[in-house]
């Protein structure tokens, strides 16, 4: 092992963060003091917090409380290696995802005289730098200073050693995942063939759904103390899993089981070395693996007019809509657009189910949930799509600029895509809501009509700002829209959305709470007219539609103006 090569490669890896951070490359200067100050700052703040805790402990006169703090600290130290492993895994994996997003994954310079062992070790060490190391330094300094007051210095020295080993363990595991992930996705692509695109899209969405389900399940009723207690207690029971051996070694240490401590510590280091060797092997095998290309079409090419053509879209508009549909289903970085409505659908359902298990909810809340499910995900989708659909062109915008494309066609195509896509979401969510909540026919009808109004008009509002504030930069991630215009869009969309639904609100409140009892019913009847006339609903829907049409008309004018400017100013 040539350690100089390892250090050089770590240096290259550190520099790759210039791209991830999106540094300005012209007249680029790097301030090393700023980089190191993060580590020094973490150390100083840690020491300060450690001394505060230590002083507090020293000042406590109540022996029972003192014992409680001492026991708590001991538990905390024992749990730290496993906690460190968890955050180490999260942050090193996030590092990888970020790099893939910024397309700065370091290709091993295989043509240089560098071995795979050196490359793998450098990658593992470089991955630890940044957030994982900052947190570890903070923890190490704080527990070390606190331990002086607590009289636990030997345990803490061992804990610090275990902490450092834990983040290396996490990074080595991430390195293995990285190699396997590339190979696995390649294999899936090969097996899936033409449907690989859909497999990729659906599995990404599924992954996020599962992730959020677990997150919300864990988040509910779990306190940090309970987590530390369960880790400290649980890792002894799970002693056969090598990942908890560092924590087990600390447990045996405080029980004065010296032989077991040495065995578990040594076993941990052997395990880390085994992971390192496995990572080296995998990198040797798959480090230069080229994923197979996704073959989408085979056979004879037949140009089609298609559904869009039959719906009255010109060939230019239909081509752009088709292209955008493919972009949003094939580009990984755009998938969050699908995730947001799904999360907004799942979150209230989980929370309501949890709440219902504790105390039954008033029936009016179910009506509200149906409206929420019908209106929010689709509208949110329209707002996100509208504001990002032009910026998502990214550096490929030159192509639109060079095409004979009028502002009118651009606005029509982009708005139609955002609207059609969002309406599908509205419909799906409404069906889910209908199946779960079984609302009245009138509520379904109102929900869907208002959904169409909101999607149509807010799609245009967002497109207006999406064109005006389009940001075509793609590093370190696709920007889509400049933050200030994103904010303006959000505010205007909320105001416009409220204006559109405002005529319906009195009817909605009446419908939701007429069946409820107690103070809710009293409140509603106090602030609203005693009874709304039968025809109120029709008038309200009509007014709502007129407001939506006016908003769409006004913002379409603005969008056309912005699109003309965009197409005329290709140099940005």
């Amino acid at each position, binding site marked *: 092992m040539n350690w100089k090569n390892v250090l050089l490669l770590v240096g290259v890896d550190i520099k790759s963060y210039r791209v991830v951070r999106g540094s300005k490359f012209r007249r680029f200067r790097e301030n090393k003091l700023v980089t190191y100050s993060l580590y020094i700052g973490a150390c100083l703040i840690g020491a300060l917090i450690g001394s505060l805790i230590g002083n507090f402990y020293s000042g406590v006169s109540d022996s029972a409380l003192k014992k409680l703090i001492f026991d708590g600290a001991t538990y905390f130290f024992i749990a730290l290696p496993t906690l460190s492993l968890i955050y180490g895994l999260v942050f090193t994996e996030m590092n990888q995802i970020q790099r893939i997003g910024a397309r700065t994954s370091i290709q091993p310079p295989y043509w240089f005289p560098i071995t795979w062992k050196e490359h793998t070790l450098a990658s593992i060490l470089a991955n630890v730098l940044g957030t994982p190391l900052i947190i570890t330094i903070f923890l190490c300094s704080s527990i070390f200073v606190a331990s002086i007051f607590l009289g636990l210095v030997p345990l803490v020295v061992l804990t610090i050693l275990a902490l450092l080993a834990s983040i290396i363990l996490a990074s080595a595991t991430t390195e293995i995942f990285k190699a396997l992930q590339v190979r696995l996705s390649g294999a899936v692509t090969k097996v899936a063939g033409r449907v690989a695109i859909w497999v990729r899209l659906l599995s990404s969405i599924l992954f996020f759904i599962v992730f959020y389900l677990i997150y919300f399940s864990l988040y509910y009723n779990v306190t940090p103390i309970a987590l530390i207690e369960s880790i400290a207690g649980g890792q002894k029971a799970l002693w056969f899993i090598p990942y908890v051996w560092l924590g087990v070694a600390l447990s045996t240490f405080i029980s004065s089981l010296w032989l077991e401590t040495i065995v578990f510590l040594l076993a941990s280091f052997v395990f880390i070395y085994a992971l390192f060797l496995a990572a080296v092997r995998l990198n040797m095998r798959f480090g230069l693996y080229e994923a197979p290309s996704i073959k*989408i079409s085979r056979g004879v090419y037949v140009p089609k007019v298609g559904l869009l053509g039959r719906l009255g879209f010109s060939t230019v508009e239909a081509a752009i809509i*088709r292209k955008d549909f493919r972009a949003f289903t*094939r580009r990984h970085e755009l998938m969050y657009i699908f995730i947001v409505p799904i999360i907004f659908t799942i979150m209230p359902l989980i929370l309501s189910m949890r709440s219902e298990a504790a105390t039954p909810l008033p029936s009016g809340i179910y009506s509200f949930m149906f409206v929420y499910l019908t209106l929010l995900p689709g509208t949110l989708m329209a707002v996100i799509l509208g504001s990002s659909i032009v910026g998502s062109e990214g*550096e490929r915008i030159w192509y639109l*600029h*060079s*095409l004979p494309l009028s502002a009118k066609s651009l606005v029509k195509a982009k708005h139609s895509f955002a609207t059609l896509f969002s309406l599908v979401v509205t419909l799906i969510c409404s069906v889910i809501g209908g199946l779960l909540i079984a609302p009245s026919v009138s509520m379904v009808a109102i929900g869907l009509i208002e959904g169409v109004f909101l999607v149509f008009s807010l799609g245009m509002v967002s497109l207006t700002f999406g064109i005006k504030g389009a940001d075509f930069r793609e590093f370190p991630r696709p920007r889509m829209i400049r933050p200030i215009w994103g904010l303006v869009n959000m505010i205007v969309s909320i105001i416009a959305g409220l204006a559109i639904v405002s005529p319906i609100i009195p009817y909605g409140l009446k419908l939701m709470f007429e069946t409820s009892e107690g103070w809710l019913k009293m409140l509603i009847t106090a602030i609203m007219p005693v009874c709304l006339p039968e025809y109120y609903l029709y008038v309200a829907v009509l007014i709502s539609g007129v407001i939506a049409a006016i908003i769409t008309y006004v913002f379409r004018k603005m969008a056309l103006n912005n699109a003309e400017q965009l197409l*005329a100013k290709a*140099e940005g």
Partner: protein
Amino acid sequence: MAHLPALKLTGVSKRYGDVTAVDYLDLEIGKGEIFGLLGPNGSGKSTTLKTILGLVKPDSGSVNVLGINVEDNPIAVKRKVGYVPESPRVYDFLTGLEFLDFTGDVYGMQPDEKKKRIEEFLRALDLEGREGDMISSYSEGMKQKVVIISAIMHKPELLLLDEPLSGLDPKSARIVKDLLRQLASQGITTIMSTHILEIAQAMCDRIAIMYEGRLLALGTIEELRQKAKMPESGLEDIFLKLTGTGDIKPIVEALLK
């Protein structure tokens, strides 16, 4: 050569901050000409091409393409032009076929014609069998082929090619060169920016050498020889002399020490 020029630039200037990319450029190119635009890096070639297409608005001067003022009607100009940029980022989430289908639709090609042209080009440039793959999996040369096809397939009247042959294999490069000559004989004008001087010498009817945004020399290869007073020289020596970078020998000698 017809009387009506395919392109007329009159006093075109473009500045980016302190840098003058194009400095009062006058240029007239006839129909059916293959015109080479040469110059060192940063001499204003790409900016000139972008200005012709209306992608860059000049600070002063006017650009007239095929009788249309670019500023007045950029869409009409774009409809008649095929463009290959220097380093194109294409929709790499589309397949080659989908991208060309998209291009054909945007330029309003009829389905039958579009199908015929796409199939012909895919076959000619050896992309058959890979047309259904996503562009993200293509090599740089294959991406370049797709962009070249997208520029030519709709039968433009003017071709603006910025380093069109970079990354192409010899067979494809030869096909593109022969194709450009055939298109020129049909009256289609090509303006090509390149650093490969042999290609410019072999293909172009006239050559312009740009330097720091200015037009240093313009004419046929024979006229350039006369201007440089180098009657027997090739374009490389003429280029180096005119751009003031001719004395290469001491640099090479210093490198060998």
